[in-house]
């Protein structure tokens, strides 16, 4: 039996492959995948399914994969209720409230907020005691305050470069984001030894990576 892992393709995939290799998994088929979306490791222990982030949680909820590797932004937005066993500490970024220089977060009028993450945005403004109108945007969220679609945006940023280049300023920092390993509830019961083995190995790989990075900084 092989463990089925839905891996978010793109940036997450690139950052996670070195960690998987560190645990001893031969990722050559994954690296040479070409256009294939389902990739089995040569020892048949793992089957990787490459998917978009929001679909990883859909697959997990339907029980068609055992494990998902996906950003915590998506897990929070989708109100994930599967088991989140490990923070892989890659793909780190942060939710921010950003807008043009003239934005006033404390102004009394009902604000319009553009975002890809309506649930996280709603929760954040509720914590401030503010009722806002949320406009769902699928991409290039930074545009919204620039073209007058929204008063501000809630989005994730890694370095803040895109915001700066578009003359946007950060007004508040919300939750931090990183890549997580999530397990389907029933899979954990049914394949606990295999799942915990992978989790423990990845945990060691993350510690090792942090140690090496710490030494480089010194």
């Amino acid at each position, binding site marked *: 039996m092989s463990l089925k892992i839905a891996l978010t393709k793109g940036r997450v995939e690139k950052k996670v492959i070195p960690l998987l290799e560190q645990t001893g998994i031969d990722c050559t088929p994954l690296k040479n995948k070409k256009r294939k979306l389902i990739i089995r490791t040569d020892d048949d222990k793992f089957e990787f399914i490459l998917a978009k982030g929001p679909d990883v949680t859909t697959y997990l*909820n339907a029980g068609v994969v055992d494990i998902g590797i996906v950003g915590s932004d998506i897990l929070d937005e989708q109100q994930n209720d599967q088991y989140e066993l490990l923070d892989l500490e890659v793909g780190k970024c942060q939710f921010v409230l950003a807008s043009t220089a003239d934005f006033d977060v404390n102004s009394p009028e009902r604000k319009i907020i553009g975002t890809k993450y309506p649930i996280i945005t709603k929760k954040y403004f509720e914590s401030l005691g503010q009722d806002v109108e949320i406009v769902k945007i699928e991409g290039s969220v930074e545009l919204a305050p620039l073209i007058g679609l929204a008063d501000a945006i809630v989005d994730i940023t890694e370095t803040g470069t895109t915001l700066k280049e578009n003359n946007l300023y950060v007004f508040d920092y919300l939750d931090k984001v990183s890549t997580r390993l999530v397990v389907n509830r029933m899979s954990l019961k049914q394949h606990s030894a295999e799942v915990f083995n992978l989790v423990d190995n990845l945990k060691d790989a993350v510690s090792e990576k942090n140690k090496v990075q710490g030494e480089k900084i010194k």
Partner: protein
Amino acid sequence: MHKINLPLGTRAEFGERAGRKQLLVNELQKSLQKRNFMKVDTPLLEYQEVFANFDLKQMRTYQLLDKNNKTVVLRPDLTLPIARLLTTTNIKLPQKFYYVGDLFKIAKELSGRNNQMTQAGIELVGYSSLKAELECLLLINRISQKWLRNRVKIEISHACFADSLLASVTSNNELKNKIKHELYRKKIPEYQKAIKQFENTENYPFLQMWPRLFGEVGDITKMLEGIELPALARSSLQETIKVAKWVLKIPNQKVIIDLSTAPPQRYYTGITFKGFVDNIPEYLFSGGRYDQLLESFQAQPEPAVGMGIDIDLLTEIAEIKNEKEEKEYLFFEPSQIEYAAKLLLQNVNYELSLEDNLETAKEKARLEKVGLLKINKQGEIENVVENSSY
């Protein structure tokens, strides 16, 4: 134009699937009636207050207003209406009940989940000994044997274990709830943060291993070796192990213990249990003891144990042996109705042939490899097509 699409989350059942479901339900009901369970049918609509104790886990209920503007809901659970029924009638207790019916929960839109589900279940009210739990577990075992090739694994837990353990860790209720919340949803990074402040206490080794405290009886006992649990938690653990060991004595029954899982509902007060089949992503059975539930309906508390069976899932995965089809078509003319009536009464395997003429009836019977009989002028049966399926 009439709207012809179904509302999201609903589906029609027909053909083979509907037949399989009916067969399972009939067999289950027959076996429960033989064992003196009383059938209960409660209405689909109940006042919202009936479900105050029910945790919908991110789902919502269908709500509507009655003529007095009071909110009524399509029932999301079948145990609470029975508790309501018992407090409003004089049904003599102890009593064993069973039910089969539909419940409604609104799942996340476009998630592919159904909002209408069929559940069967038993409720044993007025029984305080663990024999009531064993009655439920034996039913799981019989279903497992009959339709699932003994593949069901039973998971035993205790609704009080987490609370009784956390009581000895901290008196801060907010923190207790936070730890329990993160433990139950196994959000380990958050759980680790919540327990970090106990790093230098004697409870820390246990707190660290807690999310992984599930598995076979021997494994759990081994993991807990050398760990001193508070008296109440120890007693919940001992009861859990005792029941698990009894279940292991049932032939072909696999069992695990889980001390890190949330009870299926808030109203459970003792042993809880679930049943699942490997590689099936949902639980098939779920239940437990709920001794205080009737009290929340302003009645005397009554010891009780209940269990629900997901009939939709059972329908999907049950292996039902195909009974050999022995039917024969009976061709008749409308004027021969008195003979047809007599013959149908005599033999349940006769099915009326509704074809317009004998030739078409013959063609159909040959195609289906089924025998065809016709009624002759004297009212007697004549063989027209032999049954070639056997």
